């Protein structure tokens, strides 16, 4: 038994031709392509209190934003810390990530950094100790330095952009990498531009 509702059935109804894409933007279906994702660096000034980092990382997990890296550290103001996040998302997603981040009550301010912002990462790379001089030479090539030497291993410290670290890791690969640790990107705006 049905509800006894009347009216023309679905196939007899005039339906508009328009469409939206999966981001809810009205499109011309003929020309629309899937939006490409891009890398964005977000800097968030937050209250320096327990739970903030868990809150921020939880937000990105539950809303399915892709985090490439996340770093956190104190600022000159003891009550405030800075979180730097790198995300990889299509355009509306980046905007949404910023708004959601801003919405967390302990988050004071959020900015997306300009493409030319200073971005640095630090890596410690522990390689096989059989050729320390060659390791030292490669480290120098990447403006790095040897920070620990033992009979079995040499550990070097490299700082720079993510791409530079990637390249260094690849080069050190030929010595045999024992262990590696990377900090993720920290970033600040150049010159007089304020980060947040």
């Amino acid at each position, binding site marked *: *038994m*049905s*509800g*006894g*509702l*009347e*009216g*023309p*059935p*679905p196939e007899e*109804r005039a*339906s*508009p*031709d*328009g*469409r*939206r*894409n*999966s*981001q*809810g*933007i*009205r499109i011309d279906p003929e020309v629309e392509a899937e939006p490409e994702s891009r890398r964005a660096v977000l800097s968030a000034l937050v*209250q320096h209190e*327990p*739970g903030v980092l*868990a*809150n921020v990382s*939880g*937000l990105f997990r*539950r809303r399915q934003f892709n985090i490439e890296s996340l770093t956190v550290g104190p600022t000159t103001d003891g009550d405030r810390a800075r979180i730097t996040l790198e995300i990889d998302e299509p355009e*509306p997603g980046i*905007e*949404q990530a910023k*708004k*959601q981040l*801003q*919405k*967390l*009550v*302990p*988050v*004071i301010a959020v900015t997306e950094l300009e493409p030319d912002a200073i971005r640095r990462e630090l890596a410690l790379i522990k390689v096989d100790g059989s050729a320390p001089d060659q390791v030292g030479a490669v480290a120098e090539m990447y403006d790095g330095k040897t920070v620990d030497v033992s009979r079995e291993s040499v550990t070097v410290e490299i700082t720079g952009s993510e791409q530079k670290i990637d390249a260094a890791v690849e080069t050190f690969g030929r010595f045999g990498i024992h262990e590696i640790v990377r900090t993720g990107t920290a970033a600040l705006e150049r010159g007089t531009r304020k980060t947040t």
Partner: protein
Amino acid sequence: MSERTTKQRETEETTDADAKGGDGTPTTVTSGATSTVRALENAGIETMFGVQGGAIMPVYDALWGSDIDHVMMAHEQGAAHAADAYNVVSGRPGVCLATSGPGATNLVTGIADANMDSDAVVALTGQVPQSMVGSDAFQETDTTGITAPITKNNYFASDADTVGDTVGEAVALAGSGRPGPTLVDLPKDVTNDETDRDPGMPQTPETYTPQEEADADAVETAAHTIEAADRPLLLFGGGVVKADASEEARAFATEYEIPVVTTMPGIGTMPEDHDLCLSWAGMHGTGYANMAINHTDLLIAVGTRFDDRLTGGIETFAPDAEVIHVDIDPAEVSKNIHADYPLIGDAGRVLEQLHDTLPEAPDADEWREQCQTWKTEYPMGYATPDDEPLKPQFVVEALDEATSDEAIVTSGVGQHQMWASQYWTFREPRTWISSHGLGTMGYGLPAAIGARLAADDDEEVVCVDGDGSFLMTVQELSVAVREDLDITVAILNNEYIGMVRQWQDAFFEGRHMAAGYSWIPEFDKLAEAFGARGWRVDDYDEVADAIEAALDYDGPSVIDFHIDPAENVYPMVPSGGANDEFALSEDQL
């Protein structure tokens, strides 16, 4: 049976309730617990809902001498839902209280519910002493961790001197901007510790500054767009209710003669019997509302988050429409549906701004006629055979008929919820109280308790419930009896988890896996056992009398309406479909 009911209640009244103090003066602060209570008093809290337990006992003890009324619930989930409905009906924050561990986790469903529906609920939870936190102590759980994703903000109180300020902030924050639930976790050492520091008046955090007024240029651009529209449509969401902006919303709609659809939480913002009102849109909304959504060329959406139960498939939602989106939460703008004209601000204020800016009504005679045509083309209705079983829609209409325009309706979740919202004609905001976003079965009864305590005495409170939903929180009936609350529960009993059964018929070839009750309690007798009044109704000619008797009874009553178990909810927009694809019966799905 009714004699025993009365006797039971008299016994209750002489034991506990009379002894609690409260002499009209604010609580004197001597400890973290009294500071907590004082902060609630400062915030104007009059009623709270909770369940006792070890870690929260100091706070309960501090309530002994306070003017704040406390309603002892049967289960913490009920406390959270009662606080939630209290907020929706009154507009004031609803406060619930629970102990650590299971007390806190039992609140979680209610907090998540409040979060989805943007309700100002403040949860205060006990916690083990700080020295034991992290040791897996008895009834310890990571309450702030668990509730972080489902609260607007939560707090772990760590100091008796500041706990009152924290509680005040939690109350202030819950109700400001876009409302939402907050939680303060209260370790027992903090509530027990001595302090004489009075908490001040509640303050929102300094960094929390919601934008009240939209950018003037953006308003002007949007206003011109409205003036130029051929097929403008207003969409009022729950945000209009939260902002108490129904008056501005109605004024705007009627002055410029723009047709209105609402979301389900937006029910009551526009009287449903008004010519311009097309009732609510979405999965089980009216055909005419859904047609209007799909054919508008300018959707003026106010206080809505474009939930998927409203939009159906994103790709086909209002596909010819530019969108003006008014919301106080920037994160809702262009989250699901791109806003061509975002207007960030308070719903009432922005509607006033638009009102002040818009020179003339759009020329939309043809469109208004079209909307009226859809109303006659797709009328709401149901088969009304002379023979039983009862049609649930008939029961809803009879309840609506027997009550005033200001009657407050709560519901659980499922078929009965849809019939209640479809066939009750709502005329006022804050009269339709339901679990929209989270879809929590069992919301209705505890919500009726919270609603009753928030409502004026002359407003009837009716819970339209399902058999499945009622069974989920039935224990709260004991509270309604103990507190002598005049509520009427109307169960639309089809002995099924009805919406699941409907979907099984439509999409699972009729395999009723775990949807039917092979046996279900006799709810009229269950009600009597609780000390409430109960009726069972099977026949059409008993409906009106039972409703009259239940409404007349000055206390909690339950009517168990045995309805047609085969009745389904239509119209229905298929999941992910276009709004105008609504099926009028199962064979159209």
